[in-house]
């Protein structure tokens, strides 16, 4: 089997964009190809995701981009599996390259949502979008008017806090830390510092979750270029994909059986990815974790094996997850403070870990970072994909 490398990465600023998502996508694709030193005619595969959950859905976006950039693809895929979509695309592309069927693949995502303010101003005009959001859930959940997984996550966080006797400050603190991380990221959506008091004084959107503990939907775009060894133009900046593993639970949003704050797929995915890579979790220097809410951020740190159950809040308090700590978690600012264009998020995570492993993360750099981990999820963490990346050793 061939090795697969991430040779190029690019991301647009996270926030609001006026460019059409297709044009925004074209920009990051071009930038990632320049970063990889490849021309479109050297690209053999292309894969992407829809442009958003509530966005106008245009079919076959990959074929459209192949036309726009002039890519003669031997592999093409439009993937929609929620938050895992772009990591799922990376995983399949990776396998195609490992098998030698293609030598390079461009994976990108570009998302632009109708701003929430516009929806609130004109509920009737946007009712079809609200219905579309509601239709994500099965009838037994949708009947209660659910338009986001927020109440499900709220109940999971409530149980987690109940089990380990956590205080609101324990959860708020991770939102504050992620904001500190984001202040070192010039492309993050949030630019203002945050305090624990501010988080706890922000309105409860679904108790125990406060507004500042929940990630807002943003626009964004990112692209990564995967290549086999022959197409590596600059070995010194190469980051290897050491492993990718995927695991799903037999649930769709809120589990109808068993515990709701367990998310066993995360443990299975991380175990498989680490085993394939040959690394132990203690060897991971930097990780990007998909935590859409502050409480879930903590639960994910534990499920990924960085800390035992119930101990993530203390680890955050003691500075073990930040610069100079045991492992640097979400140096980008994470979903809460980098911003969260959900379809793009997995690629933003890969971009951050690649920049860290190349030593190009500027003020956010963890010195000597050699092993990185990316975790993504879909639905209500019904499925997870974990990637392990490492620096090319010479």
């Amino acid at each position, binding site marked *: 089997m061939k090795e697969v490398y991430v040779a190029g990465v690019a991301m647009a600023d996270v926030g609001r964009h006026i460019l059409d998502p297709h044009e925004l996508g074209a920009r990051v694709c071009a930038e990632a190809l320049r970063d990889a030193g490849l021309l479109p005619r050297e690209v053999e595969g292309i894969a992407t995701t829809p442009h958003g959950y509530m966005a106008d859905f245009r079919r076959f976006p990959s074929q459209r981009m192949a036309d726009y950039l002039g890519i003669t693809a031997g592999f093409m895929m439009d993937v929609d599996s929620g938050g895992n979509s772009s990591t799922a695309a990376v995983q399949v592309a990776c396998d195609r390259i490992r098998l030698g069927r293609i030598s390079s693949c461009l994976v990108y995502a570009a998302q632009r949502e109708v701003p929430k303010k516009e929806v609130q101003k004109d509920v*009737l005009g946007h*009712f079809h979008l*609200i*219905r579309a959001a*509601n*239709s994500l859930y*099965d*009838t*037994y*959940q*949708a*009947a*209660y*008017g*659910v*338009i986001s997984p*927020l*109440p499900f996550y*709220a*109940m*999971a966080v*409530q*149980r987690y806090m*109940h089990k380990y006797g956590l205080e609101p400050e324990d959860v708020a603190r991770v939102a504050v830390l992620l904001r500190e991380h984001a202040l070192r990221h010039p492309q993050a959506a949030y630019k203002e510092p945050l305090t624990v008091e501010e988080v706890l004084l922000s*309105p409860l*959107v*679904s*108790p*125990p*979750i406060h507004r500042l503990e929940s990630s807002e939907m943003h626009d964004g775009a990112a692209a990564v270029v995967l290549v086999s060894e022959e197409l590596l133009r600059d070995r010194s900046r190469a980051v290897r994909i050491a492993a990718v593993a995927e695991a799903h639970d037999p649930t769709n949003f*809120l*589990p*109808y*059986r*068993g515990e*709701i704050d367990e998310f066993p797929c995360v443990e299975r995915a991380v175990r498989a990815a680490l085993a394939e890579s040959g690394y132990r979790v203690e060897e991971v220097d930097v990780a990007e974790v998909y935590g859409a809410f502050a409480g879930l951020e903590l639960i994910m740190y534990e499920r990924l094996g960085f800390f035992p159950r119930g101990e993530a809040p203390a680890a955050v308090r003691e500075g073990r997850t930040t610069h100079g700590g045991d492992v640097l978690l979400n140096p980008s600012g994470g979903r809460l403070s980098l911003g969260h264009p959900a379809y793009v998020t997995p690629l933003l995570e890969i971009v951050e870990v690649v920049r860290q492993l190349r030593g190009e993360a500027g003020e956010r750099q963890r010195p000597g970072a050699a092993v990185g981990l990316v975790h993504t999820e879909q639905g209500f963490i019904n499925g997870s994909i974990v990637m392990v990346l490492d620096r090319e050793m010479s």
Partner: protein
Amino acid sequence: MDTKPYMQDRAAEEFFSRLSEGKFQSTRCRGCGRVHYPPRVVCPECLSGEMEWVDLPCEGILLAFTWQEAAIRCRKPEVLGLVELEGVGNVFTRVDAPYEDLHIGMRVTFSTWTSPDGLVLHQFRPVGNT
């Protein structure tokens, strides 16, 4: 404006139709006897396709609860919860009690609630409260 949820399948239509008659019911497999929630047309346990509708337990344990600020149909903040029905599973439901009066692990009992747009849904309230 139609605010009704998508009735995504026949079993869902049947479930909500029975609920509108005050019946809290789901499917039981005639092959292996397993009770499903939500109702199914195929049994995931034994793969039989022979189902009958049976009463679900009317009392359960409150596993978790919250409210949502904004939602279709439920205009004011609605208290929502997850109720464990023994031997059946978890039911996501409206809770008919103030948020402040609830705690994890309390026993709750079934009733129905008609939404402003005329949909009959299930709700649970703490045992002893009428």
